[in-house]
């Protein structure tokens, strides 16, 4: 097994376990913001899309696919974080009065 695949598998397994342990503790009240926040976080794939697009392999097809991928994942980033915050802003304890 090549060394990068090996370390990647370790990272994946531990991150999945970390996710399981952290998410298990999230209050059921916040399950919708949870979905929306984890989705925004996984839109970190924008980083890969930028790398592929910016490398410019002199192939129009790669640049076109990359540009669409940057657009789609960036919509996911901006929209995901903003909508999560908009929902969480509404969760209040007793009113101040």
């Amino acid at each position, binding site marked *: *097994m*090549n060394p*990068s695949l090996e370390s*990647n598998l370790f*990272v*994946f397994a531990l*991150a999945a376990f*970390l*996710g399981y342990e952290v*998410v298990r*503790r*999230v*209050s*059921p*009240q*916040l*399950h*919708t*913001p*949870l979905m*929306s926040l*984890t*989705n*925004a*976080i*996984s*839109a*970190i*794939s924008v*980083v*890969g899309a*930028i*790398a*592929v*697009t*910016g490398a410019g392999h002199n*192939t129009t*097809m*790669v640049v076109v696919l990359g*540009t669409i*991928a*940057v657009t*789609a*994942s*960036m*919509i*996911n*980033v*901006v*929209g*995901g*974080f903003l*909508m999560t*915050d908009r*929902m*969480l802003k*509404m*969760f*209040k*304890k007793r009113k101040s009065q």
Partner: protein
Amino acid sequence: MISSYLPVSIIAATAKFLPHRQVMPAYVILIYLAAAMLFALSLKWLSSPKTARWGVLAGEIGMAAAIIATLFLPEVRHYDWIFIAFAIAIAAALPMALLIPMTAVPQQIALFHAFGALAAALVGTAEYYAHGASLGTSTLVAIGFESLLGYLTFTGSLVAAGKLQEILPTQPMNYPFQNVASISVLGASIIAGAMVVVIPANPLVFPIFIALCLLFGVMLILPIGGGDMPTVIALLNSYAGLSASAMGFVLNNKLLIIGGALEGSSGFILAMIMCKAMNRSFINVLFGQVQAGKAAKSDDIYGGNIKSVNAEEVAAILDGARRVAIVPGYGLAVAQAQHAVGQLFELLESRSVDVQFGIHPVAGRMPGHMNVLLAEANIPYDHLMEMDRINPEFENMDVVIVNGANDVVNPDARDNPNSPIAGMPILNVDKAGTVIVIKRSLSSGFAGIPNPLFAAKNCLMYFADGKKAVLDIIAELEKL
């Protein structure tokens, strides 16, 4: 002379054996590491509504830092298309995130899943077309997973969004040999994916693979009905994360692996919780057709046992109540009744009535749907009680108002082992003093079975629209 050529020739020779991507500068790696830690912290802070907004901030900082660091990677040389894409994305995302009504959040989340999955799938495709047959076997396998999950989540999420927006029929769409057809298409996609790994130079296999994955996404979600949407959305959430994670394997980027794995496990946990709350398995939700059911005929249960009330009578009952529970369901979202219910909550609280909300995990169209709507109506979150916490309380409640919920309060699930929903955990509203069910008619819920609760001695039916009914009750109550 030879010695001065040597380093160049060594670099040239080793370049063939290095992965096609350049080695990342140390500062980028450190920023990625910080971003990964901020993402983990972000989810940790989401555990309580008190710290949840800090969690969003942590996630945003991690994301911004990672994006800026990536723009400075030496291999990123062309910025024109990247910045055009940023501009389009921001222009498209702002109205989606800020203007969409809270009742439309499920379809918006499904759309975000579609965008994220599309990005992952397209990057896998671009990598394949940029480097093709020169890629190693493990990278090709990762591209296969990334594309399979990415493309099926893309079309699957679009179909889910279409059903939630009611552009597509929300009823389960069944046809003969449906499961055989779906599983054959899945099998064909996996075979095509394996062929991409074995004969990557063949120009036909990759397009066929993509087409099969796209088709399977549609076939997987189309037969699933609206009531199963909470499980399906959670599952698509998980797939979207796993496709991003697979992309990390393709690009050898650990930040992507971590970001995707967090969503992958989160979606998986949510899907498990939803299945448990319906007493069904994944397989049953995805491939099980809704059973016709051996439940008693509705006439036998309802005949002569339905007691109907109006707003004035409900107000009189509430006037004497000390403890009241409100149980919302998907009907509340359809009727947009959350603000009316918020007003009723205020009014009852001002008359020193103790009001709690009982929320079933699968009430609504996505996990946590009801909590978001009620929070929007300014109901403090410490009054939103999950099923296990409120169930022991019902026997002490004077009045329970059920608004827009049906199957999740059906006592048959608890009492009748022959019921199609036997064993599904329910809210035991029938234990309360008086149950008032606000509903347009006696029509059945998603499970398609009659609800003996409606005929129970302590149950009163208020036949009306979920929002108008609550507003009328408020008007009558204010007169008292």
